[in-house]
């Protein structure tokens, strides 16, 4: 049985989906069988990030009971993903309560199931968090993101999700809250810092995660380092 990791943020636009996808690529490169699932059914973006436009089945079809979760797993050129459907009508008939069962099913086949959670702390976000054993928080180095991350920690603790650490994304400004201060106030360890970079936007344009698109770039290396630190936490005795 594998483990499931939620990639969560209290605030939208912090780069959570990009980090989830790239972590998936990096873990796969480390020979850890990994699948990344789009848990953000109302704002599915994993398909855009990984360049999967027509999946054999979407997470929406799984959650409406039309297809099995295994039908929806697709290879995105280096990482297995389950993507969402961007069409609004796909939101009809969805039962998000099935999500936990779907993640559990995937955990039987994969060592790591990464769930790209919806932002915020609405019903779907809490359900997605509850479906996972562990969580990585993603935030930007500003006060509102820090505050939202604190709220996510409260919910994660309530649903019994183990907090693996936080990744601070889009850093590089002199006005950033320093990472040491973020770690102090959140009371958790930072497992990564990703600088703001045009390369991320380019990888989005190309529909390829940075870790696949430009694996030797500084940013891809930083994302690989996050994956390595994550592995140290998941398998400390290996």
């Amino acid at each position: 049985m594998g483990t499931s990791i939620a990639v969560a943020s209290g605030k939208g636009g912090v780069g959570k989906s990009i980090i989830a996808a790239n972590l998936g690529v990096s873990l796969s490169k480390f020979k850890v069988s990994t699948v990344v699932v789009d848990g953000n059914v109302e704002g599915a973006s994993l398909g855009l990030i990984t360049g999967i436009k027509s999946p054999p089945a979407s997470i929406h079809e799984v959650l409406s009971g039309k297809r099995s979760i295994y039908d929806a797993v697709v290879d995105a050129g280096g990482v297995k993903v389950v993507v969402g459907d961007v069409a609004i009508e796909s939101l009809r008939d969805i039962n998000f309560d099935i999500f936990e069962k779907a993640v559990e099913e995937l955990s039987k086949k994969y060592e790591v199931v990464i769930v790209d959670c919806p932002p915020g702390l609405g019903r779907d976000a809490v359900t997605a968090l509850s479906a996972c054993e562990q969580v990585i928080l993603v935030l930007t180095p500003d006060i509102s993101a820090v505050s939202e991350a604190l709220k996510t920690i409260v919910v994660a603790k309530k649903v019994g999700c183990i907090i693996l650490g936080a990744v601070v994304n889009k850093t590089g400004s002199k006005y950033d809250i320093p990472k040491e201060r973020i770690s102090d106030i959140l009371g958790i360890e930072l497992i990564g810092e990703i600088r703001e970079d045009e390369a991320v936007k380019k990888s989005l344009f190309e529909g390829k995660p940075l870790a696949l698109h430009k694996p030797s770039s500084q940013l891809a290396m930083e994302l690989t380092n996050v994956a390595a630190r994550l592995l140290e936490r998941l398998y400390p005795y290996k």
Partner: protein
Amino acid sequence: MIVDDEPDIRYLLRKMLEKEGYEVTEARDGRECLEKLKKERPDLILLDIMMPGMFGWEVSRRIKEDEATKSIPVAMLTVRTSEEDKVKSLEESLADWHISKPMDREKLMETIKWLLETPPKR
């Protein structure tokens, strides 16, 4: 400015800060702090939460809602360490930061230096 109802805490903080070259003023509670702010403009306010008369959260909110004082960085310095308390500091009381006690001297000084130089923007 150190705002704390415990004289020992004020004394310790004062000594620590003066050793680093900072000028320090004190207030024994929220009311004295707000009164002093009518005449003084400190560069930073370190505010305890659990004080008689008025909690630090309320003091911070009043400072931040007053045009004359809102730009002064305020950090809660407190033994209240839950995530809920921290959110209350940052959101309801509009404080710029929340420092949990106990914190080692070096880290506290780094945090104070940061708050004085580039306090977080909202």
